[in-house]
């Protein structure tokens, strides 16, 4: 256990990077994902098509490919961002596609009658979406969104491949010196498990709080 105590500083800093990336990308993907979901269920064909294309693109291209493209191809196009922000942007855009799909599944729980009623009351499209459909969809999709957030947290490990010093990369570095892969990566795995557990339990609590009793 000494090896973890001796390098506690860098390991905690790396864990901090993992958590910050997960939180920022998580919030970002919730916002972008909600907008995409709204576009996907809107009656405007262009918006619907664009949102469909967005979701298909990000669901069908592996995250590692997107990360490597963003880190190594964008500079050739004249955009050179630091590594961690690049990773957070890519994670946000990628997970937003999954968030959008999770919300869309929640939309089905909103009855057609409610939408018709809101129209009869003279609500505009924006009002119908923001006051009637999305609040209920989000409440119904808490658990699936929690799963997307857990996946997002695990996906931050891929940032190690493009040079961001987060938990996996710090574990790699420690192992390079100590040569004890099973101990070190088991410990790293337990920390990821703990993060997933926290997200999962929080999602459960939030769901019970916001659930709509029908």
């Amino acid at each position: 256990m000494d090896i973890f105590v001796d390098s506690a500083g860098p390991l905690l800093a790396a864990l901090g990077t993992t958590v910050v990336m997960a939180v920022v990308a998580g919030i970002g993907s919730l916002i972008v994902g909600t907008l995409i979901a709204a576009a996907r269920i809107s009656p405007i064909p262009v918006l619907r098509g664009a949102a469909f294309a967005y979701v298909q693109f990000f669901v069908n291209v592996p995250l590692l490919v997107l990360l490597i493209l963003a880190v190594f191809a964008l500079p050739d196009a004249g955009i050179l961002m630091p590594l961690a922000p690049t990773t957070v942007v890519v994670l946000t855009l990628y997970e937003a596609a999954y968030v959008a799909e999770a919300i869309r599944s929640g939309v089905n729980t909103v009855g057609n009658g409610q939408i018709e009623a809101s129209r009869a009351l003279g609500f505009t499209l924006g009002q119908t979406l923001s006051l009637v459909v999305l609040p209920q969809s989000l409440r119904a999709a808490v658990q699936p969104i929690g799963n997307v957030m857990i996946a997002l947290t695990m996906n931050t490990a891929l940032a190690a491949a493009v040079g961001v010093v987060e938990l996996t990369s710090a574990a790699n570095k420690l192992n390079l010196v100590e040569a004890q892969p099973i101990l070190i990566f088991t410990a790293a795995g337990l920390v990821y498990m703990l993060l997933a557990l926290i997200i999962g339990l929080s999602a459960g609590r939030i769901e019970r709080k916001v659930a709509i009793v029908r």
Partner: protein
Amino acid sequence: MRVSRSPLRRAIPVAAVALTAMLGLAACSGGDAAVPGADPTASSAASSLDEVYKNAVVAEAADILPDSTMAKIKERGKLIVGEALDAPLLSQQDPSNPDDVEGFDADLAKLLAIYILGEPNVEIIPPASETREALLQNGTVDVVFNTYTITEERAAQVSFAGPYLESGLAVAVKSDNDDIKGIEDLAGKTVIVGANTPAVTAVPEEQPTATLVSFATDPQAMQALKQGRGDAYVQDFTLLASNAASDDSIKVVGQPFTTEAYGIGLKHDDDDFKTFINDWLVKIQEDGTWAKVWDATLGAAVESETPDAPKIGSVPGS
């Protein structure tokens, strides 16, 4: 019409079945992570090494002790080696011909297989740098040829035969950079290193104020250097020299500032096998095989004399 079906319509299902079978076969051969039986004649560097393979030394029956690791390998009929498939000059797989793996490590692994088995029958399991100890400890591979730097911490987990190769870390910069002349100019700079390479620990020892950025592969690190994500790239001298030889936009500055002794990783405390491999290393050094393999692989990239082979057991941990 119904009775006489056109030949084409009958041919389609047949063709479909044949195509499926072919795809299935291709998937089988492609999906196998291990690369079987590397054929030395298929290698393009083989022309210069044909002679070496033909005259390669084979162990005497008395050297293969009963119940030893080498006896088990001989019984199995192939040597299972942990070596990279993406290391230029050391162990590089030809993407268009997966059986063709060439480089210094790959050729030595084949020669070791010849020494034990009489034929270059090697199964390659590519290790990640972070899994080498585990692969050796649980017996997945017999030996690791993977620019495996001998350190005392690692020697507590695995055993090392050799060293079989010595190299050092050097500094590369963009060609238009005249400010950095070597490791001594890297204080406070951003330095690109390969993840899981000795540079990760060696650079902070020399320059504690340098910021490290690590990338998974050498091409990624090269790209990052050229795009300005760091001021310099610290990597094995031989690898940098070969990069600089093929790419004018970077140059190697200064002399190597460390000495890395690479060993052949073995299961811990297998002393018979370690002695056996060390004997083999001495034999190939004395008969000139080692120098010929070096010339054909690493020597092709750098303009320098063939170095002397390192002395067996010359570093702590070996």
